[in-house]
């Protein structure tokens, strides 16, 4: 019981490492989960090699979406923009270490969707981009 709310999820929700803004970010995008009105903005800063040197999110959401965002951003520091394009649903679920119903999956994947939109410089990421 309550295994959806593992220590790590509560911890990253209550004390996120990557919450905030980046001045002069190289990549940025914001989107929302219309189902719940949750809103998320992600900003990235990359170095000359296009490797992520800083990543921050801002916005509001449930524990699943906030902790997923925080865990995701933590995992991409040092990665190249090309690496980010390869990220998938499975990576997020591995980070969270839980199983989710379709509704909560949307919460968990919001940050990935925003990240993809940012790095592909899209209006909005297609669900296909984050499947698997």
């Amino acid at each position: 019981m309550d295994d959806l709310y593992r220590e790590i999820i509560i911890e990253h929700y209550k004390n996120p490492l990557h919450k905030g803004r980046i001045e002069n970010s190289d990549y940025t995008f914001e989107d929302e989960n219309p189902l719940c009105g949750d809103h998320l903005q992600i900003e990235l800063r990359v170095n000359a090699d296009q490797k992520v040197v800083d990543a921050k999110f801002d916005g509001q959401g449930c524990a699943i979406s906030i902790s997923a965002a925080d865990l995701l951003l933590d995992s991409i520091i040092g990665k190249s923009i090309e690496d980010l394009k390869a990220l998938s649903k499975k990576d997020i679920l591995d980070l969270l270490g839980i199983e989710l119903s379709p509704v909560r999956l949307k919460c968990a994947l919001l940050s990935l969707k925003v990240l993809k939109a940012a790095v592909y410089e899209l209006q909005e990421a297609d669900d296909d981009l984050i499947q698997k």
Partner: protein
Amino acid sequence: MPNTLNVQGDFPILKRKIHNENKLVYLDSAATSQKPSSVIQAVDNYYSNTNANVHRGIHFLAEEATEKYENARKKIAKFVGVGDPNQIIFTRNTTESINLVARTWGSKFLNDDDVIISTEMEHHSNIVPWFSLVQEKNLSLKFVQITSEGKLDIDHFRALLKLNPKLVAFTHMSNVLGTINPVKEIIEMAHEAGAITVVDGAQSTPHFPVSIDELDADFYAFSAHKMCGPTGIGILFGKKALLENMPPFLGGGDMIKKVTFKGFSANSIPYKFEAGTPAIAQAIGFGAAVDYLSTIGMKNVCSYEKELTEYAMEILSGINGLHILGPSAVDRGGVISFTLDHIHPHDIAQILDQSGIAVRAGHHCAMPLHEKLGLPASTRASFYIYNTKNDIDDLKEGLFHVQKVFS
């Protein structure tokens, strides 16, 4: 005052165990109600013994099916205080009912620059159909504001009526705030200003006695699935004179009088608005649902829910950091939406679910209202005849547990 209506045994789903071990505490009846055996049986019985297409058939089953279908229409008319059952149109749900008005009455009688009025507390189904018309016809859509207490601001309404609106669409009871609106007064004011009225009754007909003829509503919409009936069936009431002057909605079988290679003429009401094979089993199931509710008595339903709601308001407002949306217990129905400091509604619903408590989290199809309230989402507990004070005690314990998880 009884402590319970003693109807739990009528609802087979209440025996279901949630996540293998928990009793179901179903507090999501504003989304859809549970179904009593008599309704489930009526549907089963229709398929097992009567099933046939209606209206055109000259054989035993077709005649029996038609009689049951039309009988359901009569029962429903009576249940909501409508004298002439031909004013009762079967639709899929409240949403389709309201769209029907927008697409027929609206298309014919609304013109460029006309004003229509909705309110800030509406469900999407009483906003979006009007937006579609607004785009098409260049209308102006105004929203009656709500007060800080979560009631309609009647002064603001009065001011908007000066714009000579053609149509006023509003809900009988808010599915978020629980507010019960002064429908009769609003209709009277609208009529005086020369507007017709469209009342969203999705949350009223399930919970208290409604007499549409007495309210003098022009259109009134509701859904079976929120009042013990099947999914897939709803009602649009319309005044005869209005219905007769409206163009048809969908085209096809049953709604026609005559079709040639040159054109068609429409059938009389209510058939004009019921194209194709109707939701026969569902209409009959809806008839069984109003029979069931009538047996309990809508006055009893209403006073029982009032008692439950008062109890719940008291219990919930005692929880630290919990904030209830909408008016006080005196003026509301059995829907309580709230926020809990620092905890997102999704997380509240999910953790409650793990102990079998079903509530709803989100915007409850009322995004503009949440925008107005400055909230991305809320958590909603809603009650019906099968709930008890125990369920509310369980909710309280559940919320304590939620707070503990996040502490």
